């Protein structure tokens, strides 16, 4: 082991006792599956949000003070705009890399929330929320809400015509809450709409309050996941009581770390090359102006759609009113997020299942949950598309009325149909464990008499299949446990990857290894049987090492 690493470890370990925990972390096993990347995308785009957001906050001015614009965007010169709007233009046109950062921030926000939603779907459809992971499901649901709210608030900060209209609608939605609505709206906005407080307040909420909450919840989310260990998909050798996959150090660390850069790269490409939210085209917010064919960011689409599809009802009585917007914009999301966060408990009520589940369901193996999920998802997808009724009516040159009614009918009819179709499909494929795998070939022979006979070839599994190999314990971990247990008799150790530096375990053969910290290439050496192939982590090392061995 490198002397300096060792010294640092010593220093830290004597003060914090980190070696033990760090050892088990390095040896931690992560199941491999593409669907486990979805949560990672969310995490990485959040990190991009933090970086780009801090950059933006150095230049953005959260103020609705009206000034005359004199900046570098000529078409707006001389117009009265808010400082918030002017500073966003400044970021876009005059700050070096400002536009890229702004667009990256916006793209990252969209990707962040999309990744959360898809991640949520994976967890839902595989039943990964079941005991013991209910707490993380709830935390995840709260993270989704916070992300959506922060996205909306961030979208509002530039104070352009489109986002300003969004703020106006948000005020009306708050106002529509029974009993306390007008108070809530007045307290948030510092008085009647629009006032001058909302931009500075949104700013504090956007850059401090919600990000802090997200960071805290994210830490809890990941900490719990780490502690409980990942779920894994059913496969031979995988049981409810083990984890099969790659090891954190170095494989998973490289793959996950690299993936952060890939996520950031895609966001950077979008931020640099694909325009998003060109606020200079929308113009500054003016309360009596409005632009047409306005669509919010995608994650607000379902609420916008719900506002559009809602019939023009309003409840009036006993001197009070429950306004129209309450139903689609307060009640619907309220029910949605309540049901979402409580889903593990709702399902448990129905299934009475109180077992610990570490193996994911294959979606087709749980037709009931899968079809319900697809039905519900369809509902929100219809709402999402309903947010463009006007665009659709224009594009297809039909009446708004027709489009609206089509969507109202689809909203009611499509979810059950989608659910039913899914149910039939899952029933068809239920239990097909070997679906998608290569079947053993059948050799059909025709005899001279024209008689056919078939033989199933008992072929070995394909070479690339991971299941060809018996899953191993990480050798170092196994060794550690054996030593810790004390039955370290027939150990035979060999220099694994480096000649030892000082210390007393540098030789080929060893007696009584104790987990000492000084010298050697680690706590102990890897058994010969393994090292013969170059050490478990040393495919490429083996030649060098073999050379060394012969030199010895």
């Amino acid at each position, binding site marked *: 082991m490198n002397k300096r690493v060792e010294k640092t470890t010593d220093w830290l370990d004597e003060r914090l006792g980190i070696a033990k925990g760090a050892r088990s972390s390095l040896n931690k096993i992560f199941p491999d599956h593409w669907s486990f990347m979805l949560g990672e995308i969310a995490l990485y785009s959040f990190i991009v949000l933090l970086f780009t957001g801090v950059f933006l906050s150095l230049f953005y001015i959260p103020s609705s003070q009206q000034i005359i614009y004199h900046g570098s965007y000529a078409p707006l010169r001389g117009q009265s705009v808010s400082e918030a709007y002017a500073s966003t233009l400044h970021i876009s046109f005059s700050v070096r890399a400002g536009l890229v950062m702004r667009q990256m921030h916006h793209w990252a926000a969209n990707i962040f929330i999309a990744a959360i939603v898809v991640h949520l779907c994976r967890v839902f459809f595989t039943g990964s929320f079941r005991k013991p992971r209910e707490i993380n499901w709830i935390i995840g649901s709260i993270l989704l809400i916070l992300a959506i709210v922060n996205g909306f608030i961030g979208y509002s900060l530039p104070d352009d015509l489109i986002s300003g209209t969004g703020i106006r609608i948000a005020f009306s939605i708050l106002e529509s809450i029974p009993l306390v609505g007008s108070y809530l709206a007045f307290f948030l906005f510092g008085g009647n709409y629009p006032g001058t407080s909302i931009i500075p307040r949104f700013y504090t909420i956007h850059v401090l309050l919600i990000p802090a909450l997200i960071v805290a919840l994210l830490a809890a989310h990941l900490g719990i996941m780490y502690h409980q260990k990942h779920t894994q998909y059913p496969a031979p050798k995988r049981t409810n009581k083990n984890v099969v996959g790659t090891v954190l150090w170095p494989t998973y660390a490289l793959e996950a770390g690299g993936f952060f*850069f890939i996520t950031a790269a895609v966001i950077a490409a979008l931020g640099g090359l694909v325009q998003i939210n060109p606020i200079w085209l929308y113009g500054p917010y003016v309360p009596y102006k409005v632009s047409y064919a306005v669509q919010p960011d995608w994650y607000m689409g379902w609420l916008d759609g719900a506002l559009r599809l809602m019939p023009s009802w309003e409840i009036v009585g006993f001197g009070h009113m429950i306004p129209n917007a309450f139903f689609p914009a307060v009640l619907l999301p309220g029910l949605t997020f309540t049901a979402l966060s409580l889903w593990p408990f709702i399902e448990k009520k129905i299934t009475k299942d109180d077992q610990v589940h570490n193996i994911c369901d294959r979606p087709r193996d749980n037709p009931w949950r899968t079809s319900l999920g697809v039905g519900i998802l369809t509902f929100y997808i219809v709402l999402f598309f309903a947010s463009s009724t006007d665009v659709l009516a224009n594009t297809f040159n039909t009446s708004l009325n027709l489009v609206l009614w089509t969507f109202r009918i689809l909203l009611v009819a499509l979810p059950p149909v989608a659910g039913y179709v899914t149910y039939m499909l899952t029933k068809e494929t239920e239990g097909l464990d070997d679906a998608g795998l290569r079947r053993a070939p059948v050799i059909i022979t025709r005899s001279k008499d024209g008689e056919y006979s078939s033989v199933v070839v008992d072929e070995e599994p394909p070479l690339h299949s991971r299941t060809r190999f018996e899953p191993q314990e990480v050798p170092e971990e196994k060794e550690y446990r054996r030593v810790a247990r004390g039955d370290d008799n027939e150990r035979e150790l060999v220099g694994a990857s480096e000649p030892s530096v000082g210390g007393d375990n540098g030789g080929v053969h060893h007696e009584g290894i104790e987990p000492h910290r000084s010298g050697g290439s680690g706590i102990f050496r890897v058994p010969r049987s393994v090292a013969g192939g170059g050490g478990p982590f040393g495919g490429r090392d083996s030649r060098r090492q073999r050379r060394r061995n012969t030199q010895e």
Partner: protein
Amino acid sequence: MSEVMPTSRGSEYDYSSMTGSRTMERFIGALFVVSLLATIGLGVTFWLGGQPQIEGALLFIALLGIGVGVVAWGKYLTPHGPFVQEREELKSSDLDREAFYKSLERGTKILGRRSFLGKMLGVSLGAFGLLQLFPFLRSLGPVPGKSLYVTDWHKGVQLVKVDGSPVTVNDLEVGGVMTVFPDGFVGNAVDQVVLVRPANYNLVTRPGRESWGPQGYLAFSKVCTHAGCPVGLYQELTQQLLCPCHQSLFDVLTGATPVFGPAPRPLPQLPIYVDSDGVLRSQSGFNEPIGPGFWERGNE
């Protein structure tokens, strides 16, 4: 290269994914170099003043080079096992649980002996919290009071255009539309009024509003009764006002009653008159709250 690969089936590790490791190594090295070059290019771009598309492209290459390289390193040049690890049971042992209860009980018993103190503490803390909360909430904003019911329209106020000049009876052609404000409050969100002129004779939108539409001028609050957007578009052909936010349509001739979309109530109509100088003025304020609904608002 092949000597590195233990291919026998007896081998405990799957190196098969590492075939061609030398090529792979070169490939990854090349990626890192490409990334480095892109980073240098990025520096030059910044130095020269920056250009969004070039910055984006170079950032992409710089980050992607590192990302793909590192992932490939992990994927092709490190063993994938598969490795296995036991899951320890999350649940503590019965002994641990018992011991926990005992320790907890030690405290609760001692505290329980002085339950009166506990209650007092609860009351004090609760009062403290509440009393912090109220001033805090109150300083966030004024209570709504009557402010949702009033606008700056009163008897005799001049209608002015966006530039502040008064609206006279000749300002709109038949079929015309404009946004107006009470004199002195141009741009005020709650005061915005859409003035339309569907005809040039007195228009009566509803019984009781016989004198509200002089010379065909009709004035409605421009704040949508659905969610507050400005009702921006006047379709002359159908005599309808359209709110672009959720496509509510209001029929002008019947007093801006909603005929389509989610808006539940007509746009409040502002009674106006033409004074002796031909200037449009309001007869009074609105006779109902403008804009979207709220709880306190009952059946007026």
